[in-house]
């Protein structure tokens, strides 16, 4: 009886016939303007997929047996056909986990969600205190998120998720986040801050320090029930690997479909360099997933480059491609947050400046000038204190 000899991780890096799961951002419209928004969201794009086209994407995912999608945005609940699409997806055995800022999660909508099977809700919260959260997500966003959680709890939704992007400021509040989650019977989910989208501008001031990363690693090791979306695999170089697949799944087992149908290698690399195709292309999403040259190249063995001589390369795989790309580091070298400090050295020595934040879909005034998002000035002050 043949028992698997090739390690699963190797199989995954060579890609699968269909993604394990994928992120689907339904709209670039958002009523918040978070400083670290991966997709620089704000304004709806007139080219966004129509309701019929979105249902077509669900049909394809169902045919490919993609069991669930992570829906985001923008704020997905701003899409007028949000509930129709949600129902259509779950009716076709495509489960939905969606992320929301909670501003539109009224008691009535919470009850509608509670009545749907196969739907998970992640409410974003980037501070256990209103002041910490609102400095990143905007005034009043903490109260709105807590109200949304109250509404879910009152509707008997069950176990929702509280999703936290770990920053230099909130990494000291991990136990408080765990308490908030416990109070709701919710699951805590922590993910890594990426220098993508508007994060290009805020990453330097907001990403956790080296000491904080080590603390986070040990905190996570002790709490295997905290979800991470496998996003901290660069920390596995510190020793015992964190739970999860510990690999970069971009274009191999995950990808992103953006609101206009563009397919990118992962949710953190909305850039032409990582654009594989569009679901409106002939062949649809399956064609992009199976035939894109970009994805084919990502499924080839990758060079360890400057990391080749490091004994921990097997553990961290050189870290996150997006984090390197947007901080101006070579893709075959250390992650900017390499736990051995090689990333900091590389940042100091880089010959290419970090990418400028693209305006993307950020809101603009009538003259076309970007409306400033809250600048995390106080983080710069506290970081040097």
């Amino acid at each position, binding site marked *: 009886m043949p028992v698997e000899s090739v390690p699963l991780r190797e199989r995954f890096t060579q890609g699968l016939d269909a993604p*394990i799961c994928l992120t689907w951002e339904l709209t670039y419209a958002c009523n918040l303007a978070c400083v670290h928004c991966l997709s620089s969201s704000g304004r709806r794009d007139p080219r966004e997929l129509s309701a019929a086209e979105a249902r077509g994407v669900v049909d394809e995912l169902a045919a490919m047996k993609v069991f669930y999608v992570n829906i985001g945005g923008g704020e997905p609940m701003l899409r007028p056909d949000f509930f129709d699409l949600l129902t259509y997806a779950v009716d076709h055995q495509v489960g939905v986990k969606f992320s929301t800022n909670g501003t539109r999660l009224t008691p009535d909508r919470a009850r509608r969600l509670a009545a749907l099977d196969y739907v998970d809700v992640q409410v974003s919260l980037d501070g256990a205190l209103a002041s910490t959260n609102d400095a990143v997500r905007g005034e009043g966003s903490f109260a709105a998120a807590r109200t949304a959680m109250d509404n879910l709890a009152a509707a008997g939704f069950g176990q929702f998720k509280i999703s936290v992007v770990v920053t230099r400021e909130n990494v000291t509040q991990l136990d408080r986040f765990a308490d908030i989650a416990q109070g709701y019977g919710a699951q805590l989910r922590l993910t890594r801050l990426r220098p993508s989208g508007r994060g290009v501008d805020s990453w330097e001031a907001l990403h956790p320090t080296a000491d904080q990363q080590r603390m986070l690693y040990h905190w996570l090791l002790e709490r295997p029930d905290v*979800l991470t979306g496998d996003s901290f695999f660069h920390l596995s170089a510190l020793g015992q690997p964190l739970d999860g697949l510990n690999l970069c799944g971009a274009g191999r087992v995950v990808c992103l479909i953006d609101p206009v149908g563009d397919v990118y290698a992962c949710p953190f690399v909305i850039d032409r360099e990582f654009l594989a195709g569009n679901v409106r292309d002939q062949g649809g999403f399956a064609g992009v997933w199976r035939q894109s040259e970009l994805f084919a190249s990502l499924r080839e063995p990758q060079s360890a480059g400057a990391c080749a001589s490091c004994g921990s390369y097997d553990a961290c795989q050189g870290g996150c491609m997006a984090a390197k790309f947007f901080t101006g580091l070579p893709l075959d070298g250390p992650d900017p947050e390499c736990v051995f400090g090689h990333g900091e050295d590389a940042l100091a020595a880089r010959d290419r400046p970090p990418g400028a934040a693209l305006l993307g879909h950020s809101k603009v005034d009538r003259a076309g000038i970007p409306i400033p998002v809250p600048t995390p000035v106080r983080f710069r002050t506290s970081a040097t204190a």
Partner: protein
Amino acid sequence: MRGLLSLTDIVPAVDDRPFDPHLAWRVHPRVALRDESFGALAYHYGTRRLLFLKSHALVELVSSLHLFESAAAAMEALVPEPERGTYSRALARLAESEVIHAG
């Protein structure tokens, strides 16, 4: 990544009754399998858990369970004797996470 299964999350036991190989077992109605080159993905729509079945033999065993009067009978027919312990442990883990259920 050792063993026949791996799990994306820590999967707490949903069903903590001991696995009884003398009962009839079948794939849980809310579980879907997707064939892959390494074996299969199993997704449980109820618990939202994803598991990787890391051998084709295990996939065949799991998908054939309903044809036999017991899991033990299925293993007798499909699994060489020296490997039955390993496969029985894998089935026990799948039972705990409700990928398969008795009856």
